[in-house]
């Protein structure tokens, strides 16, 4: 498991773009599980939509991208070299359920291809074990 301190030292993202609260399972180059707690005091709440907050699909992808990248986390590496990956493609992304304040958005990712500095991760987003979104993310690593 990775706590917030470890996550922050591995990712360059900071508030309001840090979308990872915990990493629960890492099988490097194979499988990842992590989550973000969705709160009612986040910046998007006011505008998407007024008085009817609904976690935006674009932020679900951002959350998938950040957690999915941890599938390539290696603890022994120099922290400064961790996870300098760039999202280069999103495909077959489907949003099939709503994510609301108070929900815990759990992301499960499976590495489906990895060649040289490129990799693909199939991600599933769940709330209370129900799938709310799924898609395939492709990364390029420096």
């Amino acid at each position: 498991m990775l706590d917030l301190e470890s996550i922050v030292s591995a990712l360059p993202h900071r508030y309001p773009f840090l979308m990872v609260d915990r990493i629960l399972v890492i099988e490097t180059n194979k499988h990842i599980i992590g989550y973000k707690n969705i709160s009612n005091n986040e910046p998007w709440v006011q505008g998407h939509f007024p008085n009817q907050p609904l976690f935006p699909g674009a932020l679900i992808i951002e959350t998938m991208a950040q957690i999915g990248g941890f599938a390539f986390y290696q603890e022994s590496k120099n922290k400064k070299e961790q996870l300098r990956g760039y999202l280069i493609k999103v495909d077959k992304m489907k949003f099939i359920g709503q994510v609301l304040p108070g929900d815990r958005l759990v992301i499960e990712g499976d590495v489906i291809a990895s060649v040289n500095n490129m990799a693909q991760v199939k991600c599933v987003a769940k709330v209370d074990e129900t799938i709310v979104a799924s898609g395939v993310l492709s990364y390029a690593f420096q």
Partner: protein
Amino acid sequence: MLFNESEIREIMYQTDPMLMLKLVEKIDDMSVKADINIDNIWSKELAVGTPIFIVIEAMGQSAEFMWRQSGKTGKALLIGINDLEIEEIRFSFDNVKINAKANISYRNFCKSNVWITNKSGSKIITAEIIHCFFSS
């Protein structure tokens, strides 16, 4: 036909800090060009270049705006994205344009082709975006 920020606010459901369009040019009922504008809260920390969340949200809003111009009403929810390809992610919002073109619609489901061009007109990000409009 040009829509300024206050006119865009009248048409869209999103408000600050989630409204990300500042000027939209309606080419015809089936296509628009748009400029991106982000709230200060999103520009505080751009440590890794342009966040993909902003790019996707702005592309989706451009497509949504276009469908509203062709008569769609109600709340629009993003329900799918295919073939989002990113050639370049480090750019200034002042130097890019979003282009949205209708692909197909069936009842309240609307598919759009959306792409971002840089100053020289080259496509740097492309995607197929699907919305569903719900009457409220």
